[in-house]
């Protein structure tokens, strides 16, 4: 039985307070910015970088698709005339206003996504009647406890931020945009909120009943597996609901940030990201509890299997990332390819950096079978994977909201601190509520003796 220690409580509260104050200070300071501030800032930037910027436009080594964008860029930002200059400044001002909202949204989504990924993993374990994993069920149940608050926060931020994140929520934009008008039967605020509530309701109901049956199975007679069977049934049903709702959620909560753009495998892509982050967090919390001596029934082979999943899903993520990228790159259709052009031009480091962090690093570090059993190797790879997938969410959300005015600074880091504190508090509170070994699970003996 795990007891929520005072130190952990203080740590997570401190994270929440530091994060909240840091975020609020950047929020208020960004709201005090005026158009004049931005104009002077832009004028300063022009004198500093102006020369470089112009010459880079004439470089012939750029690829065709970048060239295409530059023509576009030339028209929009370098057209002459005082009117255009001030509208550019206004645009930049909007981007700088958006930044605290987007920073908060990225972090909130990242931690929610960990929880949702674990819920899917947990459902798969029940539906497939896996024999190796029951010793890890209580850790998974604890992580998914964060899903309800986390998802409500994400939806809440989306509704509160409104046009600061989702330009299709701005009636002035929609009035001049035929493409968004065509999608307005789906992209309207009322239906967006209803969908979000339905998804959260579905996920939370599964999580509530599955946890309830899991505890009830512990307390029931040794020959009575009825609660396990119930859990099997609702898990199978949940997985069907999950794959649809997760896909639609990813269009709603992320893809609609770029309302002109679409990708048919976006749901899978976000799924791979949340799945690998979730499995990584299961591994990290299990290792933490094991070092405290609370989960001695978890052996090397369980860690080995978790690390195999981290390795495999990292490769799967890279596969989906590349599949999405290559088709759009090859076809080079303007409304599709702008998505990657903004990322390659303005987000070069995080965009390609995340490929190294999410694919190449875990691929090489976790390839060796023996290393998958070494806790500090798993922790090292896990920390890198989590950082990489934070960057992945960052790359999905920031370009649509702040454009090239991005930086991982005070608002971003504070938002991560804020939600990591909340996540730790909620997850470890839930861990302290039930014994760490689900002793009633019919597969618990097989799971304890699991070896490779």
């Amino acid at each position, binding site marked *: 039985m795990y007891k929520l220690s005072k130190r952990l409580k203080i740590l997570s509260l401190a994270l929440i307070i530091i994060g909240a104050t840091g975020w609020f200070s950047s929020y208020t300071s960004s709201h005090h910015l005026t158009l004049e501030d931005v104009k002077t800032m832009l004028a300063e930037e022009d004198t500093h970088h102006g020369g470089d910027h112009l010459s880079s436009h004439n470089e012939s*080594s750029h*690829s*065709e698709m970048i060239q295409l964008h530059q023509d576009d860029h030339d028209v929009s930002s370098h057209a002459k005339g005082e009117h255009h200059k001030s509208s550019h400044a206004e645009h930049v001002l909007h981007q700088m206003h958006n930044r605290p909202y987007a920073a908060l949204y990225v972090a909130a989504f990242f931690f929610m996504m960990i929880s949702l990924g674990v819920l899917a993993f947990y459902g798969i374990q029940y539906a497939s009647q896996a024999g190796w994993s029951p010793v890890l069920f209580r850790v998974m149940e604890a992580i998914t406890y964060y899903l309800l608050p986390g998802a409500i926060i994400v939806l809440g931020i989306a509704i509160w931020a409104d046009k600061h994140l989702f330009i299709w929520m701005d009636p002035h934009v929609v009035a001049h945009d035929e493409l968004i008008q065509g999608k307005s039967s789906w992209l309207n605020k009322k239906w967006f909120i209803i969908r979000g509530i339905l998804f959260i309701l579905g996920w939370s109901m599964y999580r509530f009943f599955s946890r309830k049956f899991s505890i009830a199975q512990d307390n029931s007679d040794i020959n009575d597996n009825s609660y396990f069977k119930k859990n099997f049934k609702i898990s199978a049903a949940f997985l069907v609901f999950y794959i649809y709702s997760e896909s639609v959620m990813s269009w709603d909560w992320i893809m609609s940030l770029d309302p002109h753009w679409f990708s048919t495998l976006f749901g899978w892509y976000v799924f791979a990201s949340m799945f690998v982050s979730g499995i990584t967090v299961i591994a990290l919390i299990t290792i933490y509890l094991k070092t405290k001596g609370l989960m001695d029934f978890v052996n090397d082979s369980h860690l080995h299997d978790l690390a195999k999943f981290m390795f495999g899903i990292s490769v799967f993520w890279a596969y989906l990332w*590349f599949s999405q*990228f*290559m088709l759009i790159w*090859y076809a*080079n259709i303007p409304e599709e390819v702008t998505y990657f052009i903004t990322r390659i031009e303005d987000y070069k480091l995080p965009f390609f950096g995340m490929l190294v962090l999410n694919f190449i690093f875990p691929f090489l570090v976790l390839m060796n*079978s023996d290393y998958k059993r070494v806790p500090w190797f798993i922790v090292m790879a896990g920390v890198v994977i989590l950082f990489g997938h934070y960057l992945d969410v960052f790359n999905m959300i920031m370009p649509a909201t702040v454009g090239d005015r991005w930086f991982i600074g005070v608002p971003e880091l504070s938002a991560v601190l804020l939600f990591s504190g909340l996540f730790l508090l909620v997850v470890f509170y839930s861990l302290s509520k039930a014994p760490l070994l689900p002793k009633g699970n019919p597969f618990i003996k097989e799971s304890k003796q699991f070896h490779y």
Partner: protein
Amino acid sequence: MKNNKVIHALYTDDDVLMAAVKVVKAENHYIEEVYTPFPVHGLDKAIGLEPTRIAIASFMYGCVGLTVAVLMMNYIMIEDWPQNIGGKPSFSFMENLPAFVPIMFELTVFFAAHLMVITFYLRSRMWPFKGAENPDPRTTDDHFLVEIPINENEKELKSLLTKTGAVELHVIEKNDN
């Protein structure tokens, strides 16, 4: 003078075989070889075989495949005969890289898989027209055979193996070399 006498103990069940191998190892006898009709999980560890190094070989083959793919695509598509496909720039490897990634992936897998299988066959000394090594054809059907060299302890070994559930015992003079 080297003693070439070996004892062949036959079993009809893999669980019995595993238990027998553990008993024989516990009594400090050396097991020369075990012939089974199918892979028995955990047998390699019970006999005390070293872990396989084929994964390392496979990784190196994969690296070779990747290199071959890069050099080949660069030669074919960039140096020798640049082709304009879908309007992509045909004079730079890096700018064309996304189009080459599937080929790089496929050749990495191709080299790793095929060379690993070939390595495994050679390392197991299996090549075309090679005669079978298993001493009893029933080990390809439903029998398990343990081969233990005898060092003037024939009686002791026989009684031990009978106790572990062997269905047949044969003492054989090996005349290889």
